[in-house]
């Protein structure tokens, strides 16, 4: 056990769990602080997120909602993680997601097609739009070494304005100034059988897109020469160049693929979770994606699990607030999430602490 604890790989994998543990601990303290029972609080959290009440599943609706929330999170997490693997920090996932969603909304509202064609078309359009939006920072990075952190952030705000302009001038809702019209029923990702299966939750095809994307993500990075090159560039640009890998081209590809994944997050959100796009709202998914990538250690399985976890907190938050006797601040769950983020970002700290504990025990045992 101690030897197992000392291994780097094990330590890397333990770090996210310790982070979550600390998040929960802080949650307990906060609930105690508001003079409520932590046990009650967590009972309502679980109940709100999964619909489990006294060990019985009330309905599938909550689970559907959980999966629905997790879908764009998963894709955003994959988008961020993909860029991480090549040593790029894509903070522009939110903007790429907006543009992907906008392009899909335009196609989904302005063109009439058969359902079997319309759905694939909006998905493809969103992917391309997201990739194109990432192309600007990508080419600046690859050709002129412009820091992608700055450019991707700025592109978020440009995206916001583009959405605003397009919605107002082309696809404005007849009822609300700040919203686009609703996407046509032929283009939506929502399908009846899924909604029925989950008792009316808006769960949609996006979940399958996200899961397939996760599988492809793992395959590309672990099994293809392309992924081998991307990771090599991420680890050591100089050695990659020596080995004849076109480093700049790969950086360009990496950021654009990251953008494409963000575009997919956009189409699942705007044509699945909702049915329109709103002006002036930068989705937080891009930033949640960073958390998920960190927490999931950039691995496909990790990202799927981390997005489910984050969705669990997000969905369950309301029930905690509504059901506890004494008033609980709205910030309770966001604070727990923040603590998790904080501790997953300082994973190295945990690694060292665990390492020390493991070797200390050993010394004691020897004596």
């Amino acid at each position, binding site marked *: 056990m101690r030897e197992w604890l000392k*291994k780097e790989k094990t330590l890397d994998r333990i770090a996210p769990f310790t982070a979550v543990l600390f998040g929960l601990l802080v949650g307990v303290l906060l609930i105690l602080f508001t003079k409520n029972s932590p046990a009650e609080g967590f009972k309502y959290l679980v109940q709100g997120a999964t619909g489990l009440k006294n060990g019985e599943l009330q309905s599938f609706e909550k689970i559907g909602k959980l999966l629905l929330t997790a879908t764009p999170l998963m894709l955003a997490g994959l988008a961020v993680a993909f860029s991480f693997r090549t040593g790029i920090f894509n903070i522009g996932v939110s903007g790429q997601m907006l543009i992907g969603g906008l392009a899909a909304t335009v196609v989904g509202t302005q063109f009439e097609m058969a359902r079997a064609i319309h759905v694939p078309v909006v998905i493809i359009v969103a992917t391309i739009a997201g990739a194109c939006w990432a192309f600007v920072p990508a080419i600046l990075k690859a050709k002129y070494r412009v820091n992608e952190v700055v450019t991707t952030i700025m592109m978020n705000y440009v995206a916001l304005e583009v959405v605003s302009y397009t919605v107002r001038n082309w696809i404005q809702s007849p009822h609300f100034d700040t919203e686009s019209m609703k996407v046509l029923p032929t283009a939506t990702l929502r399908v009846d059988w899924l909604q029925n299966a989950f008792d009316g939750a808006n769960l949609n095809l996006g979940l399958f897109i996200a899961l397939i994307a996760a599988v492809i993500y793992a395959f590309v990075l672990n099994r*293809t*020469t392309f992924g*081998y090159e991307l990771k090599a560039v991420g680890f050591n640009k100089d*050695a990659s160049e020596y*080995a004849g890998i076109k480093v700049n081209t790969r950086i360009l590809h990496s950021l654009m693929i990251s953008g494409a994944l963000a575009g997919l997050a956009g189409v699942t959100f705007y044509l699945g979770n909702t049915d329109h796009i709103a002006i002036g709202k930068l989705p937080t998914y891009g930033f949640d994606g960073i958390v998920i990538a960190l927490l999931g250690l950039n691995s496909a399985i990790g990202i799927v699990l981390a997005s489910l976890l984050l969705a669990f907190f997000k969905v369950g938050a309301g029930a905690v607030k509504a059901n506890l006797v004494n008033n609980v601040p709205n910030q309770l769950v966001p604070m727990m999430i923040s603590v998790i983020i904080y501790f997953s970002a300082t994973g190295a700290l945990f690694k060292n602490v665990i390492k020390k504990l493991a070797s200390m025990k050993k010394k004691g045992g020897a004596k």
Partner: protein
Amino acid sequence: MDYIIELLNITKEFPGIKANDNVTLKLKPQTIHAVLGENGAGKSTLMSVLFGMYQPEQGMIKVRGKEVKITNPNVANAHGIGMVHQHFKLVEDFTVVENIILGMEPKSKYGTIDIKTAAEKVADISEKYGLRVDPYAKIKDISVGMQQRVEILKMLYRDAEILIFDEPTAVLTPQEIVELLSIMKGLTKKGKSILLITHKLAEIKQVSDECTVLQKGRYIGTVDVAVTDEMKMAEMMVGRNVNFSVDKTEAKPKDVVLKVENLNLQGETEKPIIHDVSFEVKAGEIFCVAGIEGNGQTELVELIAGLKKATSGTINMLGNDIQNLSIRKRTEAGIGHIPEDRHKHGLVLEYSVEENMALQTYYQEPLSKNGILNRAEIRKLSDTLIERFDVRSGKGSETVARSMSGGNQQKAIIAREINRSPALLIAVQPTRGLDVGAIEYIHKELISERDAGKAVLLISLELDEVLDVADRIAVMYEGEIMDTVFSKETNENELGLMMAGSKKAGDK
């Protein structure tokens, strides 16, 4: 006081390996005690134990006869132990004195840093030990040898009594080595005691009083250097007879493989980095470009490998102009490259051994097909190469490259490059920082490549290596080739003169 430092029966284990197995080392005051061993023999681990970076599982440390627990480097410093690291830990943009006082800045009465007093103290120490360092020079402006002296000064400034030198000559020119060794002698005369980690026997012979030999983590013995010859020490280190002279037959040069003509590279300054360089490398010969570091050799290789573009001139490979080919196309055209900096350019340290073995050929069959990697084939290739080139590591093909010793990392690179059987093998300082066993091995591989009819371009700073291994030698000085000579018709003196910028004796 018989011994100033005693490391008694030290055992330090890492997962899967005993880095130190019951090792004992006793340092007499005012002497130089060498620690000799191949890469991975446990020299660095032992020193890290003494310096407080690792805690040993067993054994004890005595300083000045008293048992102590050294839990971190600060404790070591407090006991008067200082370490001159192989890779200097200096701030480039700071002056010498600023670097030296870093971490213990003297304050004036107004709370500002009192540079002046510190600089005077530095100058005094520098004078006392004959270091001749200008306290106000910036680190980036002084030579590597001088930078090393700053590291030494740092220790002396902190009143260190026991100095550990970790492979101090690896980065120095021959002249600087001579100076360093005399400085070390001077230090012991003035009361300091020195532990010298090295695998260069000649240096041990020159300066050391005693020598402790380690082999694969085990303690082999301590010898009196004055009465022990180099052969004996080498044998203790490697565990078998070592062949010092490089066995090789007369070169049988055939067709020209690489032809460089009137190559020029203009840098940012007016002075060209490479000026009008022409030479040929033939199949079946080892052609060496010798010279002191920083005279354009690195850039020359970068031009041939395709990492930089020449300002003018031609590079021909097997009759074809390769100037406009990409790096990969040149690799495919038959260039194998053992780069100067194995960590930066030779390996992806986070990748496993097998992934590194595939670094030049992963995109070709059988390692991949249609862009899908064939992990089984990569493993097969890697296992074969590990076997053939005797690359040692904890977990074979799965070992992360970072965790291997320097010699084995280099072996992995050599295995990868030679395995592609390139028509031209470029080896840039292939033995830098390696021990006798590994050097012997690498020289053998280079010669066997030559004998297999390949062209070998060797870039080296070590005169011994140049004379022993090369068939023809070109000496570079300030971007120009001074002259090209046959190794059997020249000697160290002539080469040394050319390296310092004078043309061949006959040209005068």
